[in-house]
């Protein structure tokens, strides 16, 4: 793909993904949640018993598809490469707190766009915070932040997370009694398995091809005035908006939005934590899944951090609900902002240690 073709491909990819996300809602996914990496990883955590919040337990085939779709296209394009060793535990902690921030807001950057496309004005506060967080991260990037280099790893290292995804797919298909499936609430709402899986595979492949990343879009615009990735997300928004309007799923306003709350400050601070952490990780939660599919063990560790963060969020009452954020959740977000700032400082100003 040469430079001139990259923009139209990214725009087409964004439009396609926006349509897929809206159709998934039409087929059963929760409103404004055709895709949400944070929510879906949280649902998987619940399904395997890492938390016991009964309304949010389901093995989401979209997550499995994203990783495997990326894996398959990377193999076809000879871009699959097992690598890692770049501060894995730091990435785990960053992934953990990115999830805490997302569950304060009730959505990942991807769902933030889909919430906007559904008319949820609360996501504007999330977007403002997200941009602020990215600017914080870019500040440290320009000052010298690095988690140091990656190294080539044995093939097995790059296959672990995809293998776990296959195992999850088997568990989903067999539905043994020890796996939890929500009987009501968001976890009980889902499109048919094969359609969700296919959607994940397609979006995973598209995201691998285009390097789609919400954080990367804003980061590249700030650093280079490069708009390609950002415009891809504008295309997702536009396509989802048109489809939502056509399907009767566009309801502009702030109060009563699906799986959302109206506390603007904490919507903003949650996504600020997510944006800051994601810049330090080098990509949004969607990008971490796609990189995991390409064989990146560091991103796989980050995904595990997201999973554990989701479990903590629901075991200790940190996640928000439609009623708003919790006191414990607010404390966790503040702690997260402190921890992420410390990580940024330690890896910027003391590189020789």
């Amino acid at each position: 793909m040469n430079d001139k073709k990259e923009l139209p491909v990214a725009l087409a990819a964004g439009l396609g993904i926006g349509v897929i996300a809206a159709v998934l809602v039409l087929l059963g996914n929760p409103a404004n949640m055709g895709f949400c990496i944070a929510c879906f990883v949280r649902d998987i955590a619940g399904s395997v018993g890492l938390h016991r919040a009964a309304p949010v337990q389901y093995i989401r085939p979209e997550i499995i598809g994203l990783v495997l779709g990326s894996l398959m296209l990377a193999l076809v394009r000879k871009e699959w490469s097992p690598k890692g060793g770049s501060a894995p535990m730091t990435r785990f902690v960053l992934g953990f707190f990115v999830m805490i921030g997302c569950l304060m807001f009730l959505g990942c950057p991807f769902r933030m766009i889909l919430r906007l496309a559904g008319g949820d004005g609360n996501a504007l506060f999330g977007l403002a915070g997200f941009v602020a967080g990215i600017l914080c991260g870019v500040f440290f990037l320009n000052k010298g932040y690095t988690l140091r280099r990656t190294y080539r790893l044995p093939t097995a290292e790059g296959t672990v997370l995809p293998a776990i995804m296959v195992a999850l797919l088997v568990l989903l298909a067999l539905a043994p009694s020890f796996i939890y499936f929500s009987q009501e609430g968001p976890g009980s709402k889902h499109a048919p398995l094969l359609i969700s899986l296919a959607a994940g595979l397609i979006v995973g492949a598209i995201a691998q091809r285009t390097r789609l990343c919400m954080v990367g879009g804003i980061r590249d615009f700030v650093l280079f005035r490069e708009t390609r990735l950002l415009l891809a997300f504008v295309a997702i928004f536009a396509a989802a908006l048109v489809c939502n309007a056509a399907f009767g799923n566009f309801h502009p306003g702030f109060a009563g939005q699906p799986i959302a709350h109206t506390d603007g400050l904490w919507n903003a601070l949650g996504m600020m934590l997510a944006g800051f952490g994601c810049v330090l990780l080098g990509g949004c939660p969607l990008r971490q899944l796609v990189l995991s599919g390409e064989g990146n063990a560091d991103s796989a560790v980050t995904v595990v951090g997201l999973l554990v963060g989701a479990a903590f969020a629901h075991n200790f009452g940190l996640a928000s609900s439609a009623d708003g954020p919790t006191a414990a959740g607010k404390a966790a977000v503040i702690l997260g902002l402190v921890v992420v700032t410390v990580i940024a400082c330690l890896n910027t100003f003391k590189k020789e240690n």
Partner: protein
Amino acid sequence: MIGIATFFSHFGAIRFRQDCQSRGVPAKAMPVPRDLSSSCGTCVRFEGEPPARPPEEVEQIVEVTDSGYRVLYRAEG
């Protein structure tokens, strides 16, 4: 020659660009071209000779040719 260098960190790219410019080599930081890599970091496109001993932040250096990229340097490991 026109070359592109990719890096393990954004700051490595910024330092490389400054080094190129101090040697009188025009250089510009930008996102890594998709047809060069599936990673999404920062690269430096420069017009001139690459450094004889690339710094450790450099992942690879390629020459841009009419038929594509020709690898000049790739970090070990």
